[in-house]
């Protein structure tokens, strides 16, 4: 860990506290649009931080993370068809399926590195995409409307934006805490060490592969949690949720906020969702400006939002 001056971490803590306070108050205002916006930010926050575990801490640039998001979306859409709506079944199943696919695909992709890794993760995501697209009984390319929302214990429905927003905020806080603990653990140190210098790690008797595989599995499962939330937010499941564009957007969120900080990518997700809303309100062609902003972020804003906030440079 790099040193952080006290002032910088104070500034960060204040900003985060404010943000969380706003997020907690907004659903109380009775404005469904803003409530759903908070839910959306929390959902993408979870997705972005799960990707940060790979990109930031392990140095594994995955361009296929949307596959696991999509698996979460489809599980939340499919299980109600079997009469299962309880969150404590849907979330574990979604995470299990995503984790399993993560482990199996990781077994192969983690043999590759660099450019090959980027493209092979993309390929594995495309495979899931085409499976979803090929399921014609589920609407194929168009997808399908969620037959029923996910239910919390006690019967509260995630179709209610307020319930969804608070649930996803809770999940986000848990996920941040979990990811921080993980990154600071013995395991987390090995993962970072493997990113910094794999040769040295091997010469000390550790092969990076099993650690990366476990991390890849964890990150995949975590992203499925976000997917379940997203299905409930849009009340819809479609292959679009796992397209390569979504994978690219996740990466954008991570980098917008600055990688290997956990909090940074969450901020990145918040800003990304906000940008999306503001730009699309201003112009029909907001994607054009989003693309331009993405380019400018890479070329000009070298340290990410987290760096701006703490005055700390990126690696």
């Amino acid at each position: 860990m790099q040193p952080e001056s006290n002032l910088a971490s104070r500034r960060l803590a204040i900003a985060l506290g404010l943000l969380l306070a706003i997020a907690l108050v907004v659903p109380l205002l009775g404005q469904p649009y803003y409530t759903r916006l908070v839910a959306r930010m929390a959902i993408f926050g979870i997705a972005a931080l799960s990707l940060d575990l790979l990109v930031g801490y392990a140095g594994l640039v995955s361009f296929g993370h949307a596959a696991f998001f999509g698996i979460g979306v489809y599980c939340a859409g499919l299980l109600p068809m079997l009469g299962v709506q309880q969150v404590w079944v849907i979330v574990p199943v979604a995470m299990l399926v995503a984790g399993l696919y993560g482990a199996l695909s990781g077994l192969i992709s983690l043999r590759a590195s660099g450019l090959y890794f980027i493209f092979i993760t993309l390929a594995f995501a495309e495979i899931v995409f085409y499976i979803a697209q090929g399921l014609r009984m589920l609407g194929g390319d168009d997808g399908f409307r969620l037959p029923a929302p996910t239910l919390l214990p006690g019967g509260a429905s995630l179709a209610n934006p307020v319930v969804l927003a608070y649930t996803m905020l809770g999940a986000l806080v848990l996920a941040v805490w979990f990811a921080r603990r993980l990154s600071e653990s013995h395991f987390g140190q090995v993962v970072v060490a493997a990113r910094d210098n794999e040769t040295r790690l091997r010469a000390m008797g550790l092969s990076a592969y099993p650690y990366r595989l476990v991390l890849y599995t964890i990150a995949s499962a975590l992203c499925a949690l976000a997917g379940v939330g997203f299905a409930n937010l849009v009340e819809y499941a479609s292959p679009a949720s796992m397209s390569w564009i979504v994978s690219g957007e996740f990466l954008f969120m991570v980098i917008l906020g600055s990688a290997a900080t956990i909090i940074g990518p969450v901020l990145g997700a918040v800003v990304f969702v906000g940008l999306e809303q503001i730009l699309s309100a201003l112009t029909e062609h907001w994607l054009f400006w989003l693309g331009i902003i993405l380019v400018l972020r890479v070329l000009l804003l070298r340290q990410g939002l987290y760096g701006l906030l703490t005055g700390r440079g990126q690696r």
Partner: protein
Amino acid sequence: MTGGLVLEQAFNGLQFGMILFLMAVGVTLAFGVMNLINLAHGSMLMLGAYFIAAAATKITAYPLAFVAALMLTAVASVLLEVLVMRPLYRMGHLDQVLATFGVSIAVNEAVIMIWGREAMFVAPPEWLDGTVALTDTISYPLYRLAITGVAALAGLALWLLLARTRLGMRIRAGAENGDIVGALGVNVRLLFIGVFVISSLLAALGGVMLGPLIAVQSGMGDPLLILALAVVVIGGVGSLKGALVASLAVGLLDTFGRMIWPHLMGNIIGNIVANASVYILMALVIAVRPSGLFGNHAA
């Protein structure tokens, strides 16, 4: 299935493979020489298609429209190289992926701003309208044959350029070992612009020729780009031979797969396998050879 059908599909597969090759060469060259991962490469194919569609409305002579479309792409690619790509060459993979992804989003939207959301259609030139008899009963569209021919010619021209000219020698030196280029005292800036423009033109050539076959619309280059990325990984990054072999293999696998898999596995699973087969092949190759069939690059 009949022999004639197989022959027809073989021609289709070859044609598809050659289009993929035009895309894949650009990806592999840009990575080999400039160390650049370019996800905006699909946009170049799309621009080629839009430019020929637009040019065809103003210029009636097809060859002129063809040249105009390629020249417009060349101008666009020079602008892109100077404004965005050049600083990226020194950056990490992640930054390159993001910035070029951003370019691709922006260009996809820009064509909508200019030409609207509706797909455009291009007519093939009249003198390529006919068919050729392959056997007594099977005939094949002349235009599709012409595509394969032009793509093969472009590939040949590229090979001549790389194998027989000084510029080509420098490009190959760069593709094999990026540091050498500087050591040779070559004007690296110009060389990089040259490689980027050549790459873009090859992709645009694919788009120009695909124009009459598929709907010209925003994002049309992206599926082809992703396939081309798979081709590059299968063939081995930086290897031109790998790109050619893998393009043709993927083209044929994809085309025949669409016929065979649904037959063998039923409609639903068969279609899924047909769509995903290239990526499955890619996963298998990586599982056995983590740097592709002909790759030795420590990418």
